[in-house]
């Protein structure tokens, strides 16, 4: 466990020191929030209370979608593909920690930086400027945090699987574009799944992606509550277990196939 946190801390310090310019990033996030705020506002003036959700809830959903976007995506797949390309992956494999766990530790470090430094301040500003709701009660807030944690782990494993693919295909840059947009679409990052037409809604309900944005955010705004919320969290748990198993299998297979060049 101590080793785990040391890798997390290392990633945290690395990102904190190099990766971003605070004001630029905050500005970007706020502008995206502003955009989504106006889209929902205009749509709801046309049709107030559409689909049993009020404007405040919908704006909260949209703004939250932009905030989650910043910290949910750690990028183990990018790290893995870079290390494989440069050949430096062999030093990672020598480290005294299982590679899969090592990646999780790194990701957690990245996520903690963007959560603490960017997402929370941006949300605080949005709370005052755009009028984002707080969760309806403490219990809902707690369910949200649990569901968010599970969503994070699900997304981490999806990314890890993509990263394992990099060992075979070397270049995942182009696949990534399609992958990101599929996750956001079926995850309900921008548009909640209750607006989807029947076939797409069915597809989204089966795929793991709704664990990332849709379930936590719907719980937060109070649209998923009571037994439904518990059931949704169960859905996330099942997918998480499945993805962990696949990750272990795929990684051990990819590991055997790994050819280190130069290094």
């Amino acid at each position, binding site marked *: 466990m101590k080793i785990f946190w040391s890798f997390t801390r290392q990633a945290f310090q690395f990102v904190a020191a190099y990766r971003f*310019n605070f004001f*630029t990033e905050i*500005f*970007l996030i706020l*502008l*995206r929030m*502003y*955009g989504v705020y*106006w*889209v929902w506002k*205009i*749509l709801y003036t*046309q*049709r107030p209370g*559409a*689909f049993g959700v009020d404007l405040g809830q919908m704006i909260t959903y949209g703004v939250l979608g932009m905030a989650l976007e910043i910290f949910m995506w750690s990028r183990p797949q990018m790290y893995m593909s870079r290390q494989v390309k440069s050949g430096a992956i062999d030093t990672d494999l020598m480290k005294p920690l299982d590679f899969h766990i090592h990646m999780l530790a790194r990701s957690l470090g990245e996520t903690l930086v963007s959560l603490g430094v960017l997402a929370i301040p941006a949300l605080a500003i949005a709370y005052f400027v755009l009028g984002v709701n707080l969760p309806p009660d403490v219990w809902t807030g707690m369910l949200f945090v649990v569901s968010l944690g599970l969503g994070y782990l699900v997304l981490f494993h999806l990314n890890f699987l993509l990263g394992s693919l990099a060992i075979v*295909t070397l*270049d995942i840059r*182009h*696949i*990534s*574009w*399609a992958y*990101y*947009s*599929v996750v*956001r*679409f079926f995850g309900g990052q*921008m*548009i909640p799944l209750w*607006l*989807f*037409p029947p076939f*797409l809604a069915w597809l989204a309900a089966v795929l793991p992606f709704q664990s990332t944005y849709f379930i936590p955010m719907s719980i937060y705004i109070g649209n998923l509550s009571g037994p439904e919320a518990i059931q949704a969290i169960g859905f996330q748990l099942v997918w998480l277990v499945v993805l962990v198993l696949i990750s272990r299998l795929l990684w051990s297979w990819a590991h055997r196939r790994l050819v280190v060049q130069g290094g």
Partner: protein
Amino acid sequence: MNGFQLYFRLIQISLQGHMQYRANFIAGILGLIVWNVINLGLIGILVTQFTSLNNWTLWELVFLYCLWILGHSLYSLFFSHTNQLEDYLIEGTFDQFLLRPASPLIQLLGRELQYNEIADLLIGVTGLSLAYAQLALDWDGWKWSFFIMAVLSGAVIVWATNLLIACSAFWTGRSRGTFIIVSPFYGLVQQYPVDIFGNAFRIIVTSLIPVAFINYYPALFLLDKLDYTSSGWWLSYMSPLVALLLIGIVSRVWHLALRRYTSSGG
């Protein structure tokens, strides 16, 4: 060899380099197609559920999106290397352009053909044709020529805006931050009609970063959505002028920048 010939010769070399990696070529095209189809799908779902977005119907929004994509794809297909200027300045490798007996600008632009932007070109043309049919548009010769001018102006506007931002690196050493700051403006103008975001936003994308001239203003005229009683109606016809104006500014700035350039010593 004149400028054009040189440019296409350089592009040809870059393309030959890329074609060595055929799987990447195909993955790149598929990736962009999925990306755009999903973007359009999101807009499609919103508009079908709410019937319109501030009086823009589904196919009008498709038109808006694809007009952007088409102009932008012409830019990114041929000139997207513009954004990399900063790297040459920081590493001092910009010197190589000055040593060769050809225009530094053409050497920079000819560095790379963003071949997978072919996908954007295809999506733009397909989307616009579909929208044209669905909206039962029937343009006369004047509207068609305006449309072609608008697409070309769109490409010039993206290119000139990006080159101006890239040139700021001659003075500040850095341009990446500015590119990051303007990117969400590009995204919002590409996907949504500017009129939903309020006046401050409209002023910014009309004057400071004039990207609304790529799709929003020409679309108002092309889709007969122009309200001649509103105060800024004439902006709809201004895209070609804005493009010319930007070319003028860019060529001034580029010459100033070259005169200012001192190598970082590579």
